[in-house]
């Protein structure tokens, strides 16, 4: 087996489902196997700063990529926004939570969001709640997941009645999901870049290109990402 040519991609937790499919399709197409390390954007960025051997980093925001750029860790010119994330309200099907205001209901005792301090989806959730003017009211119902996947687990296990999670993760989940209007939060711009230290520069570029190809975009859309128009 030609191990060294395996591509290593660090990817934000919200990409877990979408990238697994992209990986399979990419390998089928190019013959280059891909493996993913999913984690929170912040954790992955820290690891890259300390020499994690990733070829590609797909973050859930732009800041993480910008910071790495400042430290000259990414290959010049490869950084760009590849998708916009969407958030929505997830709830166990037996509780009817459709709108942000439903979160104020008496029977919604706990609301899970990702930690807004370092998880982009958490930040977006916070912004939406603020914009709806209910941040202060729901504040003490909130529980924070350390990443967006953790957050969904809280809802799925019924420990939180509702949560604000990534659209991209609910595909296989049995929760009821209601998308939140994009206008309610700053766009969740997700940036990707090829790492400077990569030993598979071509393959890495190929992967990013595949992500941006129509095939890649289809998959991303399927999992609920919006695609930037200019590309």
């Amino acid at each position: 087996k030609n191990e060294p040519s395996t591509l290593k991609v660090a990817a934000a937790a919200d990409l877990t489902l979408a990238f697994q499919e992209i990986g399979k399709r990419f390998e089928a197409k190019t013959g280059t196997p891909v493996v993913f390390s999913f984690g929170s954007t912040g954790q992955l960025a820290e690891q890259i700063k300390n020499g994690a051997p990733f070829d590609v980093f797909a973050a859930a925001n732009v800041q993480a990529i910008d910071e790495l750029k400042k430290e000259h860790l990414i290959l010049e010119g490869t950084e760009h926004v590849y998708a916009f994330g969407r958030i929505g309200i997830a709830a166990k099907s037996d509780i009817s939570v459709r709108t942000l205001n439903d979160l104020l209901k008496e029977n919604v005792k706990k609301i899970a969001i990702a930690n807004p301090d370092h998880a982009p989806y958490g930040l977006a959730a916070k912004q939406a709640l603020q914009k709806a003017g209910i941040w202060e009211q729901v504040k003490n119902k909130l529980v924070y997941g350390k990443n967006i996947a953790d957050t969904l687990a809280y809802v799925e296990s019924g420990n939180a009645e509702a949560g604000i999670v990534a659209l991209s993760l609910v595909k296989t989940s049995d929760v009821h999901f209601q998308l939140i209007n994009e206008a309610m939060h700053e766009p969740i711009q997700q940036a990707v870049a090829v790492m400077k230290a990569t030993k598979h520069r071509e393959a890495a570029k190929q992967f990013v290109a595949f992500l941006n190809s129509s095939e890649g975009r289809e998959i991303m859309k399927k999992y609920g990402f919006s695609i930037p128009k200019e590309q």
Partner: protein
Amino acid sequence: MEPLNLFPFFLSLKVAVAATGLAAVIGIPLAYYLSRSRGKIADFVDTLTTLPVILPPTVLGYYLLVLLGRQSPIGKFVEETFGTTLVFTPLGAVIAAFVVAVPFLIKSARAAFASIDPNLIRAAKVLGRSDWNIFLVVILPLSWRGVASGLMLVFARALGDFGATLMVAGNIPNETLTMPVAIYDALLAGNHRLANALVMIMTVVSVSLLYMMKRVEKRMIRGDGSHAARKD
């Protein structure tokens, strides 16, 4: 620069103290039971009490979340009866820390109980005391050093728990956000100055703790010495 939010620090202290208290109430009698028995049930309980050392804390945390969560029978019962949930509250953090840390107390207290001269217990029995009274008046005072050293370990481990606490308590700022989680958050948010400050606090507390533990240990040795001298 924002003032340092010390809530997580004090929460961690409170959680660690409470977990230590819980460990004392549950772990000490259990250790005593284990130090006396040699049966199959005791062996089983013994195995059970060591499992938390081996299973990863996050996994432990996840199963605790499911076991005590709001959909679980236990969680439902508690929520209906006391109007509070076990998870996502400081109580959840206490339970998580307790489960992760109590094995260390059990191990240490058990050894301390086992090393008490059985003649002292026999003497107390013959002098008319009940088993419970003997436990309080003879056994605990004589093994308090081992027990104390075990409680210290529990306290330390409880203070430092990340995985289980995060899962069971959620990291709700100013509510269930403990120090280890706060440090982690600060690190991931790129706030290294905050992280370092918090780690400093944590380390100073840890080192003071260790120093206390050392002193307890030394006294223990001295204590033993005086016993030995008496035997001569």
